[in-house]
């Protein structure tokens, strides 16, 4: 199993996670739908997770994987809170467009 993973060069993992991260960043920047934005944030976190897991395996160091668990816990909490807020926003505005937040400026 370890050999299979290591048969893929580390560079590829770096490329893949970079691409995933960039997709996430652009999704956050471009999309207005709050749900999609939250999903994109998850995507960025998971891109980092992937990289951590990959390096952890290649360097035979368990710390990276521990870090992944931490990030997953935080991501789960963040998703719960973010979706909770979103549900409340939707109930009040019947919309999930993030630009509505302009209106609470004053």
């Amino acid at each position, binding site marked *: 199993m370890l050999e299979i993973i290591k048969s893929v060069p580390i560079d590829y993992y770096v490329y893949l996670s970079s691409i995933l991260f960039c997709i996430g960043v652009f999704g956050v*920047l471009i999309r207005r739908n709050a749900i999609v934005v939250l999903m994109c944030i998850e995507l960025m976190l998971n891109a980092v997770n992937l990289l951590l897991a990959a390096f952890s395996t290649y360097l035979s160091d368990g710390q990276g994987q521990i870090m992944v668990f931490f990030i997953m816990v935080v991501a789960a909490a963040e998703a719960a809170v973010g979706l909770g807020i979103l549900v409340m926003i939707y109930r009040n505005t019947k919309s999930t467009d993030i*630009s509505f937040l302009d209106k609470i*400026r004053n």
Partner: protein
Amino acid sequence: MNTLVPFIPFLPLIGFIINGLFGKQLSKNAVGLIGSGTLLGSLILSVACFNQIGASGPIQVNLYQFLAVDGLNVGFGFLVDQLSVWMMLIITGVGFLIHVYSVGYMHDDDGFYKFFAYLNLFVFSMLLLVMGDNFMMLFFGWEGVGLCSYLLIGFWYENRSYGEAARKAFIMNRIGDLGLLLGMFLIYQTFGSLNYAEIFAKLPLIRVEPGVITTICMLLFVGAMGKSAQIPLYTWLPDAMAGPTPVSALIHAATMVTAGVYLVARCNGLYAMSHEASEFIAVIGLTTSIVAALIGLRQNDIKKVLAYSTVSQLGLMFLALGMGAYTTAIFHVTTHAFFKALLFLAAGSVIHGMGGEQDIRNMGGLRKAMPITFWVFLIGTFAISGFPFLSGFFSKDEIFAYTYAHGGIIWWALGALSATLTAVYMSRLLYVTFFGDFRGTHEQEHHLHESPLVMTAPLMVLAVLSVVGGLLNLPHFMGLGEGEWLAHWFGGNGLNNMPVVPLNPLHLEESLEWGLMAITTVLALIVLLGSYFIYQRSKNLPVADEAQVGLSKLFAHKFYVDEIYNFLFVRSTEKLSKLLHYYVDVWALDGLVNGVGKGVQSVGAQFRKLQNGNIEYYLIGMVAGAILLVLTMFL
């Protein structure tokens, strides 16, 4: 006795504290009783001091050391020698009579307790001034009486012009005080002490540059000029008549304004060493005396006439000081305290009877309605004019005898001119006020009444004193015993076993003295009689200020001195203030402070645009920042 000496000033202070703190709750009688009673206590103690000094020399009491810094040791100490005790007797004696009078005069005033509190505070300060054993104590008293003068001139502060008169007095006195203060600094630098005893002990031994003593004398005299209303700082005194009349009598005639005379007499050792300063004092004194008398000729406010008369008499006192006749000056202070307090209080009685009227053109014929006031005013007028054998006759003629002996005939003639002018304006005041027909309104005539006994009794006492006051220092040639009792009393041993005021005998022929005396007396008598015909027989009334012409107009407008001062000092100061206000305060300082504020605001306004609430915008900013960080790390 020594333990009782501090009570002389502290009794009025206690009166001030009681009346000041609880006067509102006390009845008017109680307030008057406390105010006058504390002064009576001081008077009795002063008399006791007077008795003891004659037997056993000066009393010195040092309560405590309140300043001890690097060689400068100033104690809160009292020195009661012949000069101090004499001033104390005048202050407490005349002060007591005026306090009693005030009980009647101020009876209907709402500020009754406040008035007595201020008066007591004044007496305390004045006693501190004359009783202190060093210049610092004198300065305390000096400032204290200045403050009380300010408070009492502005006693009816609802009237704006009264408040302004108070401020004028205060500011002009400040100018003089600066001179006194500088003089004290120079004394300390020269003698290394502020104590009278140490200074006067060093005086015969000290070797300094000749100008130093003269400078000290001049600076001290500047202080005296302010307090004693001499040219050029005299204009506050006539305005000070805004205060209640007892104040004018006590502060602005009998006691405070003579503080300058006391100062010079106290430092007679210094002045005796400086011929220039003495001459300067004599010139200022004589000029003031004549100028003020000329102005007094054409004033129509009963108190203004008396005020200018006071300035004029103070000028004569300084003339005496300048001639080296220190005892004579104090003698004139004494007689002047009697007859000027009498005149002011009688004027107050007139104002009281007229219901507040002060213009003599609206009076006339008061002789019948106010007989006691008339008679005491007559005595006062005759005393100040030098009617034979009244108090003013002796003190004035002594001044002129010294003036002749030390200055020569021209000085004497100018002095005699001033004395004659005194007789002119005083008899004019007397005849216009008390003779002829009543010229006031009908209500005033109805209101007209003699003052109550509480006011007339002090008047009668002062009238007696004005008559017999001259006996204190009879000229030696009058033949009643040795004569010159006061001069011998002052010649007694004081500090360091030196005479308080050295005897300064006149070296004139007896016949010449008789002759000089006769000339001034005859002049005064001619004026007193002549004025009677001018004002009584021909009903020659003073005209309105606007109708005056020529010299009269000049006198009526007080030589335009107020206008000149106004133009030279007040307006230029105002202009300077306005310039400073505009350029320094508004333009420079406010500009700087407001500029900083505005700068911060405008920078903030620019940054505010970043904070527009648009989430995408923030996100782009965040990502851009992150990319930038990464780039800087790798590049």
